[in-house]
């Protein structure tokens, strides 16, 4: 009886070569990755906190410098335009008063009516 059982077990557990499709399926899963298979992947190295702080600080300094330069340039432009306006105004006032002097000289140098008639 035991010999029969043993022979039956041997027959049931005999090694059988896999089918061609089996081999192909297995290889495909290995290459593409079975979504049902949880594969442990190595996580990327995490950057230290100090690096992030340094980068933030540097970016803030650069941004602040850029904003300061922009404001400085804008102030300079406003000052320059204001100075230009004042120069033109100063010359306008000067010319007005020169005109006043000119008119006074002109009216004084105008010939008298007696001189015109030669009397």
């Amino acid at each position, binding site marked *: 009886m035991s010999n029969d059982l043993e022979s039956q077990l041997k027959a049931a557990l005999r090694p059988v070569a896999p089918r061609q499709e089996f081999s192909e399926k297995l290889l495909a899963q290995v290459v593409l990755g079975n979504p049902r298979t949880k594969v442990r992947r190595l996580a990327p190295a995490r950057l230290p906190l100090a690096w992030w702080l340094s980068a933030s600080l540097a970016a803030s300094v650069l941004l602040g410098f850029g904003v300061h330069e922009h404001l400085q340039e804008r102030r*300079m432009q406003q*000052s*320059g*335009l204001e*100075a*230009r306006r*004042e*120069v*033109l*105004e*100063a*010359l*306008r*006032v*000067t*010319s*007005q*008063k*020169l*005109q*006043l*002097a*000119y*008119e*006074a*000289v002109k*009216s*004084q140098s105008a010939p008298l009516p007696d001189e015109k008639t030669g009397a």
Partner: protein
Amino acid sequence: MRKFTLLLAALLTPVLACAAPSAKLILPSFSTMQQKASESVVITLDPALLGLAGRFLDGNDPQDAATKEVLKGLQGIYVRSYTFDKDFAYQQADLDAVRNQLSAPGWNRLMETRSRKSRADVDIYIMIDNNQAVGLALIASEPRQFTIVNIVGAIDLDKLHKLEGQFGVPKLDLDQSRSPAAASPTPHK
């Protein structure tokens, strides 16, 4: 010897600087007048501001180009002009502090006009150094306005002549061949 020369130069420089007449007038604040005035124009342009203004003048614009030429060599432009609602709301004494400075050596009265018609008095003074105008002062007093203009620096009368037509500058019939010294000014001794 070299050290002695340098020391002497260092000691004499401020003395010489004080001795040289300055074309820049000391203008009062006119604070009282400013309160009474209906309009006031106060312009103070030192060399830095003049340089800055020059950078913003458009060389392609005829008026700006002419202005740029006039600004070359100038060290300062100072204007005080006050307009009032009533005749002679200001005192002539207010202007005397400025007129007194123009009696200092170096200043020459170029023109003095008195108009009965407009009741306006205009005095123009010029400071000459080495046969070149280095300062101009103008005091104009009208019934309802008085104006003081002080221009410091190398004033080119020829360029001023070329400004005719711009800003309403009148033709002053300035003879370009005449030097400023030959303009028969009245020197103050």
